[in-house]
Structure formats: C-alpha cells, structure tokens
C-alpha cells in the first residue's frame, strides 16, 4: 500500500523517441532534455544509448533516444535495438518523430509502431520546411485517421516542444485506442485472427506482446520473433500453424507473403498521404541539387573532397597554434617550475613525470578541438554523406564501403575518436577492419616527431618529407584494411545504404555536442591511461638494475643510460641494428608508446640536450636514410597506449594485442626495406 502511495506521489513515465535517420531526432532529444543526458551503451552491443530525464507538470519523464530506423524488421543492430526496447521494455509512450516534408516514407514507421501496439505520439517535425517545399499537411485529419495524437513542431527553433511534452504526459496517463491499423485483406486477416488466437493461448505471451503483431510478424517469417516464440511451451503449435498459414496464403496470393505485407502497409500509407497532404507546387530545382551536382561529380568529387578536408585541417592547425603554445607554456614553464620547487621525489614525479607527460598530451587539445569542430560542421550540413558516396567506389575495390571514410579521416586528428566512430558501421566485419587499420593513419601527435627529424636532416625538403609520411600512412591503412577484410574478416558485406538528406543549416548546439563528445574521449584517456603510463616510465628512468639512481637521471644522459630505460634502449638497439639507430633513438621509441609526440622530448633527455639543441643532436645521430626509416617506424610501429586501450574496449583484448603485434612487424619490415633498398641504390652515405 505504502509503495503504491509513493508511486502515485511522483509519477514516472518511460518515453522513447523513435524516427527515421535525419529527421531531427537528436535535435528533438536535446530540446526535450535541455541537452542534459547521460550516455551509455545498449546491452551487449556498442551502440550508444542516450537517456535524459525531465519534469513536466509534476511527472518525471525518462526519455530514451532510440537509434534512427526506417522500419521494425530487426535487420541490423539499430532496428533490433529499437524494436526490442519497445517490445520488451514497454515504454509508456513512444514519440515518433516524422519529417513533414517527407511523410510517405516516415509514416511507414508510424504505421509499424502502431501495429506493434506502442502508445504512439507523432511529432510532425520540420513543418516549416514542408511548407517551403510546397506540401500542406492536414495534421488534424492525419491524427484522426491514425487515431494517435499528433503535434506539429519545428524542433530546430523549439516550436511545439511544450505542446509535445503535454501531449506525452496526457497520452501516458490515458491511452486512446488507435485507429490506424493496416487492413491486409480478408484472406490474410483471417489467418492473422486464427494465429493470434493460438498465440493468446499462452498467457505469458499474451501478457507480454500484442498477439496481432506477433501473428503478422510470424507470417512475415521474422526470425527474431520466431526465436521469442520458441521459448513458449506452445511454440510447436504456434509455429506449425504459422508455417501452414504462410504456405496457404502464398499459394492463394500467388506471391511471397513478406513482400505482400510490406506493400499493403505502403498502400495504407499512400492512402493517408493522399487524403492528408496537399501538394501546392511542383518542387523546383533546389540548392541541394546544384551543390550536389558539383560535389558528387564523377571526376571532380574526389578532388573537391580532398581540398575541403585539407582546408579544414590546415585552418584548424593554424587557428589552434597560438592556443597550443599557450598550453605548452602553461605546463612547460608555469606548472613545471612550480612543481619543481617541491623537494625531492614528489617534486620530480609531479614535474618530470605527470606534468611533462600529461602536458604534452594536452597540447593537442586545441588542435583536436578545431579539427573535430570542422568535421562536425561538415557532418551537420550534410557534406560527409556526399563524401562517403564519392569514395564508395574506391572503397568497394578495397573490399570496404564509403562508411569507413569518416573514421579514417577523424584518425588524422586522433585515432581514438576514429576508432570509436566505427560504431556507425553496421557490418561487423567492415567495422573491425576499419578499426584495426585506423591506427596507421598519421594522427596529429606524430607530426612533432616528423618536424624535428625532417628539420634536422632534410632542411630543404621538410614539407615534402612530412607529406610523404601522411601518404605512407594512408597507403598502409588501405593495404592492411584490404588484407584484413579478405583474409581475417571474410564474408560478403551487408552493404552501404545511407539516406542523402538535403543540406541543412548547421546547428551550433549539435556541432558543439558532437565535438565535445569526441574530445571528451581523448581527455579521459589522457587523464587515465596516459597518466599511469607516464608514471611508469618515470619510475623506470630513476631506477635501474643497480637500484635507485635518483631523480637527477632524468637530466643526465650518462646516469640515464644506467636506468631501466637505458637497459631497454640498449636492448632495442640490438633489434634495430640493421637500421643503424643508436640506443638513445631506440629508447625514445619506448617512450613513444605512451604517446607518440613524447618521442621528441624523450630524445632531448636521452641525448642530454635541450629541445632547442635537439636538431643538432639528431642530425649527428642519423643519416637521411636512417632518419627516414625512423620516421616511417614512428608512423607505423605501435598504436599509443590510449589507442590500444580503446581497441580493447571496443573489440576486446585479443584485437588490441593483435594490433600491437601486426603494427610492430609491419613497421620493422618497412623500416628495414627503406634502409635496405636505400643502401642498395646508393643513398646510404
């Protein structure tokens, strides 16, 4: 009794948002929740689950953002997640967001949701766009015909959001009987009726699911629903009856039942649209058409894409440069000097270990922030979808699809968000392949290494040499991806289907959220994995086989040579004998495992010079040939610690270890070839 009273005091309703991709679902979610949401994963899969909570008229609404879907066939992870959530978790209300400018396609999902017995409230979004494009939607009539509440909105501007909230609460408290059920014709309806009677015999099934929906899905041959039925004690009877009905209907209809059912749904939707939507004018050639003519051009498409991306990166780096210097100064001078005043071990740990290490990672934050910002902008206006289209043909030859483009491009900023964004690739094999190849893309942390080494040995050709590293990275990423897809993750791809929405005015809030979500991963990793790694290396530097060396080792090459790091460096030097790298350069590679740009700072310490004097030291330690091989090795050799941690999190420990091993072998092989071939053709001097 008491519990009941409590429940009545604060009513809590579970609300799910469902809709096609690109109809403004995230915008609506952000509008409803005010942007306050927590992100988790759907159980068992790595698709993001967003949940937010708001209070409306003294009730709590817990709002779940379902993945964007076109139907409820349970084809692909997204549809399965959305459908299972609605069927198993039984949300009090499903807000179905539909694009008013494109009703026919959107209503298919609406009708499917109603058929599933979800308590639907339709949010008819982008009504302004529909009017612009010459459509007039009679929303009262549509609401009546569907038998569910319908609220017109313009989520971008926040219009209609309050009305929608009220309608959701109302629907949660009192449910109307929906009218918008598809009639499949007397023959099929007869079988649906008979089959649902059998389903209802199992009281457990009848309690959990809508029997009519189960019957229709069984007639469609939906294997996921069949699996659910198999748990019932009456499964035999139900499945036999379904198979019999299907056979009977297919022979009397003279065609496949599944196609017939989808078609009937579309017919019903067409009828709704015909009665409720007036076409005012024929749509003219739009701006989207004109822009698309150029950016998806057969010949110019790819050059345009490369130019756009180059400009985005160039601009991001230029704008970020002063900010990077500021952070560098803050950590390198201010904090470092402050920490160094602390006496003894603690001061050194803080200054030489944590501040230097974490600081050198944080220097990249402005760079990354701007790169992610520009990419989010390109995504938000709709350009990235076009870019995926123009590269699909090349990707197909490499046994991938256009969907792998975005992760690889993000990888130029930082490999971490690149690997995480592979989640958007539906095909598991395509996804793993892309994630494993992504660390070969030259991230921004590798640039300082190239700049120092190329600056020391290729003074006149720095730009060309650095560019060649980026190109090398792309070439190896594509080669390895092709090999993985052909040998490791075999099997046909489930293909690449993507909606091509019209270009949209970018939404600052969406861009901000997307940028922050990507940057957050980087910061989180810098704060955890890299922190631990930095402390470990610090410990290995001040101790050696002979015991404690003292913090002076960090500033003195001769002392450092006796530390564990020195031992490791000398060990690695032997492995790298064919390449002719000294122990200092070899040991620096070990540091680079934490984060690649640390290679530069580590070399300075190991050579016993300041960072300014490094150019001189490096030019003495390498020949142009061994230096080039060294750069290629840094590009390929091991993903940084944070990247490995992400791969472990996304794909499992097995794949993280595999990546470390394959990259090391590849890097060794490539560096060896560069030195070997170079020497043969007489570049060795």
């Amino acid at each position, binding site marked *: 009794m008491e519990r009941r009273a409590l429940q009545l005091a604060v009513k809590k309703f579970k609300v799910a948002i469902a809709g096609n991709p690109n109809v403004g679902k995230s915008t609506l979610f952000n509008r409803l929740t005010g942007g306050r949401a927590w992100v988790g994963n759907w159980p068992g899969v790595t698709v993001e689950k967003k949940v937010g909570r708001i209070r409306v008229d003294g009730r709590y609404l817990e709002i779940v953002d379902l993945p964007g879907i*076109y139907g409820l066939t349970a084809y692909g992870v997204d549809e399965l997640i959305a459908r299972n959530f609605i069927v198993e978790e039984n949300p009090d209300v499903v807000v179905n967001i539909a694009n008013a400018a494109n009703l026919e396609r959107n209503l298919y999902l609406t009708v499917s949701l109603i058929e599933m017995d979800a308590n639907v409230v339709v949010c008819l979004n982008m009504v302004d766009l529909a009017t612009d494009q010459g459509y007039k939607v009679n929303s009262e009539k549509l609401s009546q015909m569907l038998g569910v509440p319908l609220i017109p909105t313009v989520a971008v501007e926040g219009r209609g959001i309050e009305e929608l909230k009220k309608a959701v609460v109302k629907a949660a408290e009192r449910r109307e009987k929906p009218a918008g059920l598809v009639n499949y014709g007397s023959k099929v309806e007869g079988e649906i009726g008979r089959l649902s009677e059998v389903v209802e015999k199992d009281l457990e099934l009848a309690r959990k699911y809508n029997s009519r929906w189960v019957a229709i899905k069984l007639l469609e041959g939906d294997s996921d629903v069949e699996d659910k039925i198999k748990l019932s004690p009456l499964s035999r009877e139900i499945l036999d009856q379904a198979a019999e009905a299907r056979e009977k209907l297919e022979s009397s209809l003279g065609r496949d039942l599944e196609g017939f059912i989808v078609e009937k749904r579309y017919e019903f939707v067409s009828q709704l649209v015909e009665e409720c939507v007036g076409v005012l004018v024929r749509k003219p050639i739009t701006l989207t058409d004109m822009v698309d003519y150029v950016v998806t051009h057969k010949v110019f498409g790819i050059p345009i894409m490369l130019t756009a991306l180059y400009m985005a990166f160039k601009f991001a780096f230029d704008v970020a440069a002063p900010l990077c210097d500021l952070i560098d100064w803050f950590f390198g001078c201010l904090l470092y000097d402050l920490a160094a005043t602390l006496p003894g071990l603690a001061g050194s740990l803080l200054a030489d270990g944590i501040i230097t290490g974490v600081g050198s990672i944080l220097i990249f934050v402005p760079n990354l922030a701007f790169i992610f910002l520009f990419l989010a902008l390109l995504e938000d206006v709709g350009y990235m979808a076009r870019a995926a289209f123009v590269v*699909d043909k090349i990707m*197909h030859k490499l046994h991938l699809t256009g969907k792998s483009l975005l992760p690889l491009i993000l990888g130029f900023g930082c490999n971490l968000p690149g690997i995480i964004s592979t989640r958007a690739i539906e095909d598991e094999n395509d996804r793993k392949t892309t994630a494993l190849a992504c660390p070969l893309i030259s991230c921004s942390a590798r640039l300082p290494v190239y700049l120092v080494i190329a600056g020391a040995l290729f003074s006149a050709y720095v730009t060309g040499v650095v560019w060649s590293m980026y190109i090398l990275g792309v070439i190896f990423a594509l080669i390895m991806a092709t090999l993985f897809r052909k040998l490791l993750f075999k099997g046909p791809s489930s293909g*690449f289907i*993507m*909606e091509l929405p019209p270009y949209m005015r970018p939404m600052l809030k969406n861009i901000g959220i997307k940028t922050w979500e990507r940057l957050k991963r980087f910061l989180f990793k810098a704060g955890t994995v890299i922190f631990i790694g930095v402390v470990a290396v610090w410990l290995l530097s001040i101790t050696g086989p002979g015991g404690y060396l003292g913090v002076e080792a960090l500033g003195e090459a001769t002392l450092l040579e006796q530390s564990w790091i020195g031992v490791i460096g000398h060990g690695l030097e032997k492995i790298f004998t064919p390449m002719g790298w000294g122990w200092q350069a070899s040991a620096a590679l070990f540091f680079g495992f934490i984060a690649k740009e640390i290679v530069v700072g580590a070399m300075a310490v190991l050579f016993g010079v300041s960072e300014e004097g490094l150019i001189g030291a490096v030019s003495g330690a390498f020949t142009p040939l061994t230096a080039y091989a060294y750069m290629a090795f840094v590009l390929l050799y091991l993903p940084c610690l944070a990247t490995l941690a992400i791969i472990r999190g996304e794909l499992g420990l097995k794949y993280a270890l595999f990546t470390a091993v394959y990259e090391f072998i590849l890097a060794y092989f490539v560096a060896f070839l560069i030195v070997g071939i170079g020497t043969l053709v007489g570049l060795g001097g």
Partner: protein
Amino acid sequence: MIPLAFANEGSLVQIVEVRAGQGLTRKLAELGLTQGSTLRIVKSLSPGPVVVEVVNDNGYTDAWRVMLGFGITMKIFVENRG
C-alpha cells in the same frame, strides 16, 4: 536487364530482381526498393554507387533520396524505362 550500378544518371528504371539475402531484401523493401518499384537515378558513378529517388505510383517522387553502395547496386537488377 542490367545491374543498377550501370544505369545512366537521370534515367528512370524499374527493379526487376533483387538478388540479395533475406535481410537485405527486406530492408530494401521497407525503403520502397522492391521488385516493380520505379526509381529515378539522381546520381551515378557508373559503374558504382548510385543515389536514387523512388517514383510513386502517381508519378511524383519523394523528397527523399537514398544512396546505395557499389556492393548493393550490383545486386539490384533493373530495366530502363526512359
């Protein structure tokens, strides 16, 4: 009958056959891409991926476009309708 990958930009085609697994066939059907549907080829990197619009029975096209990757356009067979 040609694979969709080879259809000309700007042309109208009708789907004759979808040679794909059950899952993909069903997904395509839900998008309105099924045997008998008429499509307008908005963009084609022929042979390669295409962008199509579905032409409704009343002759109007949706304001909705979908791109199909090279892998899929080789599995959909169409006939030219002008």
